[in-house]
């Protein structure tokens, strides 16, 4: 147990001491080196100043362009007005190199003391773009043997109606799949990169902000979908307006240096930094609406017997209410304000920003209000030391609407029934046709919200004592405190008693807090050398990462009366609990990169990790990587018509994912025994041999530019998988232990292709048209399940050897014998004559009672992509459009399940002669799902915007240097064959697990947003 056990306390004390000792040693070592080497650095140079502005071809200022003085370490970046300023330049002239994501590297000669004006041309392929993710330090894209996606976030937010971080990514990086789930404001998407990698562990990519790992949890708040499913996400805490760019490491080949836990990829957020110069202010104001588009035509007609006559009658409650001028789902309103200022000198730069956002959903109980702030500082005390700190804070409340398994307005509306219009005597019922309570009653009865207070911060010290050596130390933390509350208060109202019973008569309250602390420390260095045409870059480093999450919860029932809502006012069933989860990782890595004439690069690396979740018998894990890139187009012999840039790349690498904390150790937990006494109960059998899952991947691809880079293509093929995949193997209960035991026994393989096309079909002085098209595929297959043929993580979902991971399985109804009189399924000797697919062996259809479960489809999209278009015209106008699509997967239409299989509200239930025998058979029992699992492929007009840069004279009148306005729409149209309400809607995790299961979920909302941007 040495090094692994979390017992007893004395061991913890020793551990804490060891950890502290490590931190102290590392810090002391770094401080000593800084101290020793600081004098070696020259004092801040004196000299002239170069300043200027960087513009695009439409003469619009470009923010965040990196401007460096060739042959020196001097440099700066442009502010929100495209301006830059570099002091300390020796001589009278200098050559500037200007780099920016999405543009060709540009050089310009600048004279000290005069203004320099630089115009940049967009680049379809940019080999000189700087990449910082997945590398020991920053590097040019040309050196990479892997594909790392880059998103120019500041350009996207400037033109698209981006309302959260996830939508900033959606459709902008091939291989990254965003499954939106719910339209509830404040809810989050499920994010997958290159499909799924794990049977039992998380499939969510890691998030880093400015080099520091932060909380990437999804579905953390009140379970407003029930079945263990929450909709809030920590991904919503990142303000898109604070982000300069995003880099995405997609697979094991590129994520090796992130080690254990990076198997699902890494998303790095690079925040905006201050640019040298006088303070540059920017302000963005947005206002808009959110709506349940076409609710009266999308929400279906239900059927049921008239309570008086018994005749079958229809009810379309959404239309009824809309026709009465009282649509069930209201229009929500949003507004947001962002303001930032950046500036500084060569030795100190800053950017400080603040934001306020209020966003309203389509039910009165759903809205979001938060405040955020960010302060980024960069200090250069000498030209060899850079100290950078990035601090952010966000606080706010998200009020959630109940949906899915919880009920709520969606539930009572979607499943409305004529039987609830009045009783058999014709007396109107309180439900007025709604399935359960009136929507207004739900709004009053259930309140759920989450408060978040989150601080993320990092300090990075980079020291470059020699031209051939630099090293850095990064300290980071992410401290988040969630307060989650669910209240069902007492209402002494007969209708509420009728609707909600105990919940309204007695009431209950549940609260829980989740405090998450991420701490990280990274030290690394790089030594560079050159031998004639060969360059060598040797890097090394050590990472320490700790994640600690503590939960405190309390619950109580029975408020004595209305108005009492405090937990202390509950009078029974009061309980409380506290738990915490801790996980620690230590990793060491080394990398060697060799370059030849700056066009051939060979890289090899190795990382060794240990993790507190590994079993006592598992010591450490090693992850190797090797990659090569070749800029073929720069070879003297290269001659290909129309092709001006061509880079070939290939890579192999491994990474991993640690087991769940404490899963290696057998343990008991506390419980309440007889008469309220103290007791314990077995909780886990443990597994001392448990180690990490090992992701592996080979990547091949190329980047090519055509027609002087007016068109470009990036292509990647990947193949790999997961070895030692962790399976949740059930424990035989006769062992005396409940639950499951994690074992490294599975294997997953996967492969896919990714293509990104960029082109500028039109580019002239007054008009330009930029388009991108991206698409990707991913295919997973279960190779081994430790001897089992399949395992079923949740209802109708199976991991089956030879089939995709987490696929839909069920009995497939193909026919039924129909009673000619009733039109319903005939029965022989009490057995319903419904026939199913006989399974892989083929043959005649068999009675469904005896039929096997068969493969019904993928649960995760196997293809996705997007098309974007930006048309700029008349210098000041631009139209931006994003259309995205997903395909190759199926969704379970739980709304149909409830209506047709359970509540008997479908036309199929009452007019069976209008439908095929297979459909009649399928709806004859809740045991069948084949009619519910349907292709959910779709194409969506996701974003469209029209922007106008106001004339300078107008901006000046507002006291601004620049001003622009835009109007935009989001989720405007969907093309799909999916028969449910919304192909993107789904439970977000919980017991509904792997699959995409739409049941009583709010669809994606249609939004319209107006934006005013000012730069001062």
């Amino acid at each position: 147990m040495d090094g692994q056990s979390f017992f007893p306390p004395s061991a913890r004390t020793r551990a804490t001491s060891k950890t502290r000792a490590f931190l102290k040693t590392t810090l002391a070592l770094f401080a000593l080196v800084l101290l020793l080497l600081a004098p070696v650095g020259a004092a801040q140079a004196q000299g002239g100043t170069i300043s200027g502005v960087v513009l695009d071809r439409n003469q619009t200022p470009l923010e965040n362009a990196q401007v460096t003085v060739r042959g020196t370490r001097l440099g700066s970046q442009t502010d929100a007005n495209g301006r830059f300023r570099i002091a300390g330049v020796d001589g009278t002239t200098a050559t500037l190199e200007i780099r920016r994501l999405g543009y060709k590297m540009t050089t310009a000669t600048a004279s000290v003391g005069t203004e320099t004006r630089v115009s940049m041309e967009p680049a379809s392929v940019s080999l000189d773009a700087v990449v910082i993710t997945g590398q020991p330090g920053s590097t040019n894209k040309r050196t990479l043997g892997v594909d790392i996606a880059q998103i120019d976030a500041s350009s996207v937010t400037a033109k698209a109606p981006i309302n959260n971080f996830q939508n900033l990514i959606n459709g902008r990086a091939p291989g990254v799949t965003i499954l939106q789930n719910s339209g509830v404001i404040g809810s989050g998407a499920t994010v997958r990169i290159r499909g799924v990698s794990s049977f039992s562990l998380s499939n969510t990519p890691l998030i880093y902000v400015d080099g520091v790992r932060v909380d990437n949890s999804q579905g953390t708040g009140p379970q407003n979908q029930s079945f263990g499913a929450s909709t809030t996400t920590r991904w919503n805490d990142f303000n898109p307006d604070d982000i300069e760019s995003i880099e995405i490491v997609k697979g094991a080949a590129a994520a090796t240096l992130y080690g254990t836990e990076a198997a699902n990829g890494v998303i790095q957020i690079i925040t905006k930094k201050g640019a040298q110069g006088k303070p540059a202010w920017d302000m963005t104001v947005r206002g808009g609406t959110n709506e349940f588009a076409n609710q009266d035509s999308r929400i279906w007609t239900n059927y049921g017997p008239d309570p008086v006559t018994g005749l079958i009658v229809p009810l379309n409650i959404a239309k009824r209410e809309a026709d009465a001028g009282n649509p069930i789902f209201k229009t929500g309103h949003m507004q947001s304000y962002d303001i930032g200022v950046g500036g500084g000198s060569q030795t100190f730069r800053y950017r400080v920003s603040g934001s306020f956002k209020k966003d309203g959903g389509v039910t009165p109980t759903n809205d979001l209000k938060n405040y955020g702030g960010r302060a980024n500082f960069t200090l250069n005390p000498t030209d060899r030391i850079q100290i950078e700190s990035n601090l952010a804070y966000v606080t706010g409340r998200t009020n959630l609407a109940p949906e899915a398994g919880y009920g709520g307005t969606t539930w009572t509306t979607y499943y409305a029934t004529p039987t609830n219009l009045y009783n058999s005597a014709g007396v109107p019922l309180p439900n007025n046709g709604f399935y359960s309570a009136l929507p207004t009653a739900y709004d009053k009865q259930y309140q759920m919200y989450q408060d978040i207070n989150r601080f993320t911060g990092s300090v990075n010290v980079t020291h470059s004592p020699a031209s051939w050596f630099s090293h850095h130390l990064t300290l980071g933390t992410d401290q988040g405190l969630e307060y989650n509350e669910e209240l069902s208060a007492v209402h002494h109202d007969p209708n509420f008693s009728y609707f909600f019973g105990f919940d309204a008569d007695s009431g209950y309250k549940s609260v829980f807090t989740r405090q998450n602390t991420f701490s990280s420390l990274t030290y690394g260095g790089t030594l560079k050398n050159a031998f004639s045409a060969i360059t060598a870059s040797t890097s090394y480093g050590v990472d320490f990462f700790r994640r600690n999450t503590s939960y405190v919860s309390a619950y109580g029932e029975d408020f004595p009366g209305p108005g009492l809502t405090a937990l202390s006012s509950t009078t029974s069933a009061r309980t409380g609990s506290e738990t915490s989860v801790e996980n620690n990782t230590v990793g060491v890595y080394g990398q060697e990169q060799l370059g030849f004439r700056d066009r051939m690069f060979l890289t090899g690396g190795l990382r060794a990790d240990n993790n507190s979740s590994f079993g006592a018998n598992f010591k450490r894990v090693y992850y190797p990587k090797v990659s090569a890139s070749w800029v073929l187009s720069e070879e003297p012999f290269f001659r290909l018509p129309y092709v001006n840039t061509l880079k070939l790349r290939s890579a192999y690498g491994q990474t991993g994912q640690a087991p769940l904390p404490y899963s290696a150790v057998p343990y008991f937990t506390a419980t309440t025994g007889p008469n309220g006494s103290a007791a314990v109960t077995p909780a886990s059998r443990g597994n001392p041999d448990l180690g990490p899952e090992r992701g592996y991947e080979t990547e091949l691809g190329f980047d090519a530019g055509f027609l002087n880079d007016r068109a470009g293509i990036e292509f990647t093929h990947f193949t790999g998988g997961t070895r030692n995949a962790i399976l949740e193997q059930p424990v035989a209960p006769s062992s005396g232990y409940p639950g499951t035991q994690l074992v490294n026994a599975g294997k997953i393989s996967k492969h896919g292709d990714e293509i990104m096309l960029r082109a500028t079909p039109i580019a002239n002085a007054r008009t330009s048209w930029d388009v991108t098209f991206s698409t990707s595929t991913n295919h997973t297959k279960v190779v081994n399940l430790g001897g089992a043929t399949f395992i079923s993580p949740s209802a109708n979902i199976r991991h089956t050897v030879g089939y995709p991971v987490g696929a839909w399985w069920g009995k497939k109804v193909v026919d039924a014998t129909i009673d000619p009189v009733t039109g319903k399924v005939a029965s022989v000797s009490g057995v319903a004559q419904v026939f199913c697919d006989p399974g892989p062996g083929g043959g005649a259809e068999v009675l469904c009672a005896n039929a096997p479960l068969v493969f019904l489809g993928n649960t995760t999209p196997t293809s996705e992509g997007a098309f974007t278009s930006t048309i700029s015209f008349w210098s000041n106008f631009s139209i931006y459009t994003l259309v995205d699509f997903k395909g190759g997967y199926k969704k379970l239409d739980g709304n149909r399940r409830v209506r047709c299989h359970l509540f008997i509200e479908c036309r199929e239930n009452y007019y069976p002669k209008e439908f095929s025998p297979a459909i009649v058979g399928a709806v004859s029992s809740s045991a069948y799902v084949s009619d519910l699992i349907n292709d959910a492929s779709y194409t969506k007009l996701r974003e469209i915007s029209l922007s106008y840069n106001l004339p300078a004279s107008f901006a000046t009148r507002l006291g601004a240097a620049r001003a622009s306005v835009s109007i935009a729409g989001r989720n405007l149209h969907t093309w799909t064959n999916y028969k449910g309400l919304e192909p993107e809607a789904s439970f977000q995790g919980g017991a509904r697990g792997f699959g995409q299961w739409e049941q009583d979920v709010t669809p994606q909302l249609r939004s319209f947003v107006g934006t005013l941007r000012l730069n001062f």
Partner: protein
Amino acid sequence: MKLTRIARRMTRATMTTGQIITILVLSTPVLSCNLLDKGLEATAPDKIETSTLEIPANAGLIVNSAIGNFECALKSYVVDAAMASGEFMDATATAANWAFDRRDTDPTADTRYATNGCDVYGIYTPIQVARGTADRALELLQGWTDAQVAGRQDLIAKAAAYAGYSRILLGEGFCEAAINLGPKLTSNAVFASAETMFTTAITAAQAAGDQQILNMAYVGRARARLDQGNKAGAAADAALVPSGFVMNASSENAPTIRQNRVQVFNQSRLVSVGATYRNMTVAGPSGPVPDTRVAVTNAGQNGSDNRTPLYIQTKYANSTSPIPIASYKEAQLIIAEVQQGQTAVNIINALRAANGLPAFSSTDPTAIANEVTEARKRELFLEGQHLYDVRRLNLPLDPAAGIPYSTVYLKGGNYGTERCFPLPDVETLNNPNIGG
């Protein structure tokens, strides 16, 4: 500044930049490799490792925990057994509850009865956890000494008695079972194992002078013997149980695992009382009178599926009501079943009188035998006894097999013929001595 000057002097005097960098680069991997095996401890304030728990000082805690595990398992077992035997019927829209209510439990697909916790319909795993913890407690206590553990004999008696009762539930509820990752056992083999446990409990309880556990073990062994068909042995043990004895599983309102799940699930509209039990009466001189042993009220509303009429049992008044594990009443009914004749009539009437019900009178052996069976059904209503009576005595299934399941709600299928729960796949697939 002073440090900087010192450092500058040191640097100039002793080291070059290259030397310092070399030291740094070389020392980092050395330091890091050392670190890889240290400093990884993770605290867990809400968990206690098995090896830390199992010490003599924790003997009382270990036995108490085994009792708690059993009580929770029993409450869930009573609910599931009631659904399978017709005492209760499901009233939810949750398909996962329907199979054992419909008596066609699929050992592969239906996981709720197999692996759920005792607060959510689980029975096989909770019973096995209760048995496992009681067995382990007994094993530990038998390995420790009286010097190490005060009151060791009494703890042994308790551990053995609850280990026996866990076996009773396994044997009665499941068609087959396994113990400690062993092979499949028939119910009779499980009852035999239970009888051994009760004998151990009786010996230890006598040594410790614990009359309550002694009586509980007598009733338990009588039940185990009756289940095996050893009627004489059963009656002999039952006769040793004094009047008024009852051993309950206690209940508290919080946490939920301590609640009387029978009352809570019924009150929460998840289950309704089965049709047979809604208006039970007893023949009296002036006509039928309501049977107070099976007191049921019509709630006037539907269950949570909004379709099934809700009938509420009133035997357990609230979530803190205890549930009998063993009682004098049960012992008397065992005697009545074994002895039959006037002895049985006398016992039936004594029990009826205690409930203010008219007396039963008959000399017809068949009528008496039927009345004994009926008395067990009513006296032991919702105590987890009827399911095995249906199997043991081959009583008619209620509702009858083959009729459509839930006519008020499209839950699908017909009532099955199941008289015991199948051994779930979670055992058969993962037990190395069965097939795992």
